[in-house]
Structure formats: structure tokens, C-alpha cells
């Protein structure tokens, strides 16, 4: 089963974004590749979403129509995701959280109300990063600042169980400079970037 909070480096490959399955199934329904609950189950098995698969097996056995079955797993998976994210955010309450830019715009909104947030922009030359007043800029300043942090949030790409991040972000996440007990939270992007390098983490990585 998928538990983003307890994902150790050796377990990275097992992590599966079950919420991502909903978008995939929704597309397959829209394009009429999925017409029955059995089709939903077939693609869910192929995707490797264990939680949804268990649920769909029950619904298929009960002859629940496809649209209802999809709604049912949709609500179920979203509730699960909400609970996971809530517990993750609760663990960050009143902690010093470093948000390493670039990040999607909705992520800061999750942390700002609950934690003491510092924005870190290691790549000063990246003009595409969202504009944040008061961000700590530059690789050296960011490397110094992360030593005061309890949690670091960053964007990464995952392939074959390995994590890749922008070279400037990877520089800040170097295990040697991170304080012991720091928590790492990755937001996965769906594509790699030319400047990505593999990151090695000594601490556990959670996914948001």
C-alpha cells in the first residue's frame, strides 16, 4: 500500500500516485476506452494501484455500474489523500519549513498557514520561478539557511525508483550539509528537465 509518509529510499519504487490514477481513468472514460467496471479494474491493475484495485473488485462483484464505481473510488482515494496530506501538514505545524523554489503555486498555500515558512531560491538566474518577495537567493545563502530548517519541500522527478532534481536544488539537499532529523518532502513533477541530476538522500522522503 501507498504510504507517502513512510517512504524510505529503498521503498521508492513501490510508491504509486493513486490520485494520479483518477486522471488516467477519467481520460479513458472520456475517450471510451473504458465502458464497464471490469475495464476500470483492468486498467487499475495495470496501473498498479493496490488500494483502488481492492475497492473495485468489491464493486465489480456487486455489479455496480462503471460511472458509479468510478465515483466511489474517486471519493475514496481523495479522502485517503486528504488524510495523508493533513497528517503530513500536522507534522509540520510550527516547524521551520524551507520551500525550495521552483514549486507549483498551490504548495506554499498549504504550508503558509501552519508553519514558519522560508522561501529558498538557490538558482538566482532562473527567471521562470514564481516571484516571491523576501526569498533567500543564491546557492551559498540557501545552503547556509537549510541548516536552520526542520522540513524541506522541493520539486523532483522520479524514474525507476530514483529521484532527480534541478542541479541547484540537489546542491542544497546534499546530505552532508543537512541537519540530522530533517524531514524531506518531495512534490513529484511528471517530466524531467535538462538540468536534472540524481539526488541521494540519507533521510526519508515523503511525497505530497
Amino acid at each position, binding site marked *: 500500500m501507498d504510504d507517502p509518509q513512510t517512504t524510505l529510499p529503498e521503498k521508492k519504487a513501490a510508491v504509486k500516485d493513486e490520485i494520479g490514477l483518477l486522471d488516467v481513468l477519467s*481520460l479513458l472514460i472520456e475517450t471510451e476506452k473504458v465502458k464497464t467496471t471490469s475495464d476500470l479494474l483492468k*486498467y487499475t491493475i*495495470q496501473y498498479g494501484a493496490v488500494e483502488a484495485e481492492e475497492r473495485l473488485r468489491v464493486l465489480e462483484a456487486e455489479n455496480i455500474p462503471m460511472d458509479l464505481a468510478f465515483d466511489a473510488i474517486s471519493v475514496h482515494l481523495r479522502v485517503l489523500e486528504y488524510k495523508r496530506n493533513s497528517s503530513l501538514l500536522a507534522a509540520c505545524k510550527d516547524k521551520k519549513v524551507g520551500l525550495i523554489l521552483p514549486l507549483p503555486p498551490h504548495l506554499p498555500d498549504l504550508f503558509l498557514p501552519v508553519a514558519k515558512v522560508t522561501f529558498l531560491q538557490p538558482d538566482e538566474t532562473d*527567471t*521562470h520561478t514564481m516571484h516571491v518577495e523576501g526569498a533567500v537567493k543564491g546557492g551559498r545563502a540557501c545552503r547556509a539557511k537549510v541548516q536552520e530548517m526542520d522540513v524541506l519541500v522541493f520539486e523532483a522527478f522520479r524514474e525507476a525508483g530514483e529521484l532527480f532534481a534541478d542541479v541547484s536544488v540537489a546542491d542544497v539537499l546534499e546530505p552532508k550539509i543537512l541537519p540530522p532529523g530533517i524531514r524531506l518532502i518531495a512534490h513529484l513533477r511528471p517530466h524531467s528537465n*535538462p538540468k536534472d541530476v540524481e539526488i541521494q538522500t540519507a533521510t526519508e522522503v515523503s511525497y505530497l
Partner: protein
Amino acid sequence: MKLKSRLHPPLGVLFFLFAFSIPVFAEAANPEVTNASVTTGWQMTWPAGALMLLLLFTAFFAMTKYEVPLPLAMTLVSLAFLVIQWKSAPLILREGFGHYADITVLFTAVAVPAHMIERSQGFKWVAAWLGHQLGKIRLRRPRLTIPLLVAILLLATFVTAGLMHNVTSILIMTPVIIRLCASYQVPSRWILSAGLIASNLGGFSTRWGDTPNIIESATWGLSAGDFVREVLPANLIVVFVLIVVATILTQRGMARRSRQAGTAQVPFYTLQVAQTAADWKKAKADLAIDRRLLTIGLSLLVFFIVLHVIFKDLAIAIGAITIITCVLLERKSSRYHTLTSLGFDVYLAFAAIFVLAGCVSHSWIGATLYQQLIAAKAAPWVIAVTGYFGTTFTEAASWATAVSHSIHELDPSHAAAWALGGGICAGSSSLVTAASAGIILAEESQRFKDPEHAITFQRYLAFGLPFSLFMLVFYGTYFTIFR
């Protein structure tokens, strides 16, 4: 050495054609050069011309093989050319910078708002939306995917080049093409190669779309309407042919890849396509669009394009207003960055190219070509052929600067301008090193560190050279018929 032996045969063929064309067209005639001091001297002898060509080829070779940056190579070459010019150097330097002056303002006026749009992530949003829609099409009608992908990408490159200059277009479109092709496992080689030609065609279709156009417009007094009426139809025909050729080659690439993979079907193919499409949707949702930058960039780009078309004589003033407004409306901390968004190296490269052009036109090379044009009575096809080879061996902007005034003196009709533009456009498409956009394509595509997407000199040559020769024949014929 292996690379060297691969590079030399096509260059040798081109050089042979170039050299062969001289006795065919040439008849004795004296070039009319206004200043007597630059019509005599060692720079007007053939050994000086040969040395200049040698220096240029060395620079192209260094840029291709040793990845020497274009501004560095061109600056050193232009300085070496000034040494060859010796006492005439100050005059040619002033002339070169005279031509460069207008470009500085006009090009910056397009580039600054275009870079603001790019920084706002607006283009990435469009690419993500496109990726999602293509996934849906691939699930519904798989056979339509490749033709649609090729047509959309090449037309998008064509249009952005027409609106924002071809260099900006290739900078924006290269990562989009690579990401879309990689995500749906479509070979990117032919689409990227065709993308460079589409950007040259788009640039050639508007008055401000390419540096040679800006120069020709100033020389012939061409309006934006002239380009739309007289050049755009020809370019649309070439774009259509380009889309067809790129589609066929990409489909063949897909088929070859399937054959190499064997008969085994891709596991969970439908799910993979749906997952890719869903990934693009997520990528779109994750993008932080800077609405302020997007609005300012778009509004000022439209402002500049529309007003400088309507008030042609005020183009420089309107360009200046656009740059000032962009900078003032930008956030305080980013104002300097916005003003210098093109970068010192771009201005350096342009300055070098214009000086280089001045040196070429006041040399044995320029005089010889001028003689050819006089001998052939500036027939459009001769202008196109000399434009083609001149661009292939120098650079698009430098060739336009070097010859446009001479050609205008011989033939002030629009047909001469279009033939020169057509020849330059075809020449820019022949080699990846023939124009700035090609150098940028090579650099950008190699940033992805995947040989599948890297457009090198050799990988481009197989597409660029034959298609550019087709373009040359087409433009030579078209502008001879539609004078």
C-alpha cells in the same frame, strides 16, 4: 577525424557549386563602390578573399566540432577581417554599425516582450495543454496523431517566428517539441529539423520576423502588407510541403523503431498513453503563470507590431516606447534583467555579423558576386542562388547587409527583394550553422543530453540540404513568375 571526413564531402560539394557558379555568371564589370579607398588594396585580391573564406569555414568548423560559442567565433572572425581591411577598417566599421543601429532597437522591441511572455510560463502552459489534447487524440484516433503533431508544432513555430522573430521562436519551440515527442515516444529528429526551416519561413513572412527582412525593408522601403501579399502565399506552400515531408519521415521513423523492437506489442499501451496525457494535465496544473508578465508582454508585443506596421516611419520611436514601457511596468527588482533579456552575447554576435558583412562586401568576394549579378542583369533566380550560397558560407544577416544595397541599385523591384530573401531563407535552412537560429537549435537540443533529440551538423544535413535546394528552386521559379 571521423567527424571531419563526414563533414567535408557536403561542404566540398557546396563550395564546388559556389566556385562553379562564378565563371558561369561572371563578366567583366567594375563594382560601383562609393569610396575609392576601399576599392583598391590587398583586400580586393583573390588571396585575401580566399583567406576570408578560410577564416569563416574555420569558425563554422570550430562552432560545430568544438562547440565554440557563436559570439566568440564571429567576433574573432570579424576582427580578423578588419585586420585584412587595414586602412579601410574605420570606414567599414562605421558602415557596419550604421546598419546595426536600427536592428538594435527593432529586435530588442520584439525580444523584450517576447521574453516576458516566455518567463510568465505562458508558452509552457500552451505546450502542456497541447500535450494533454494530443493524448486524447492518440487514444481516440491513433493514426491522426503524427500528422497532427507535426502540423501543429511546425505551424506554431512558423507563427511564433512571424510574430516574434525566428531566433525567439526556435528558443521557445525546441524544448516544447522535444518534450512532446519524448512523452509520446515519437522520433524528434525530423520535426526539430523541419522546425528550424519553419522558423526561417515564418521569419521571412513578416517585415520584422527575421534580421534580413528588417534590412531589406529599409533598403527597398517594403511595408508589412507587401510581405503578406507577395511572400506569405509562397511561404505557406513551402510550409505545407515541409509538413508533408516531416510527417512521412517521422512515420517512417516510428515504423523503423517498431521493427527494431520486434513484433512484441508495447505492454499496457493504452494505459501508457492515458498516463502521459494525464501527466501533461498535472504539468499544466502545477505551472505558476505570472499573469502580470503575460499581460504586459502580450499587450506590448501587439502594441509594437500593430503600430510599427501602421506608422512605418516611426518604427524606431515606437520600438523605443515599447522597450521603455516594458521596463517600467516590470517589477522593480527585474527591470535591469528585462532590459538585458537578450544578453550581451546576442548584441556582440550581431555587431560582429554586421562588421563581417561590411568586410565581405568590400572585398574580392563582394566584388565578384556583384559582377555576377550585373552579368545576369539581376535576374531573380541569380539573386536567389547567390543569396543561397552567400548565406550558407557567411550568415543570413551578414549576407543581407552585404548585398542588399548593391542589388537594390541593380533592380529596385520587389521581385529582387523577395528573390534575395528567398535565397537567404533557403540558405539559412541548408546547414545548421548557416544562421543564428540553427546554432541555437543545436545548442538547445543538445542540452537534453539525449542523442535521440540532439540536432548535430550531420543529423541536420540529411534533411536540411535537400529541402533547402527544393526551396531554392521553388523561390527562384516563384519570384520569376510572380514579379
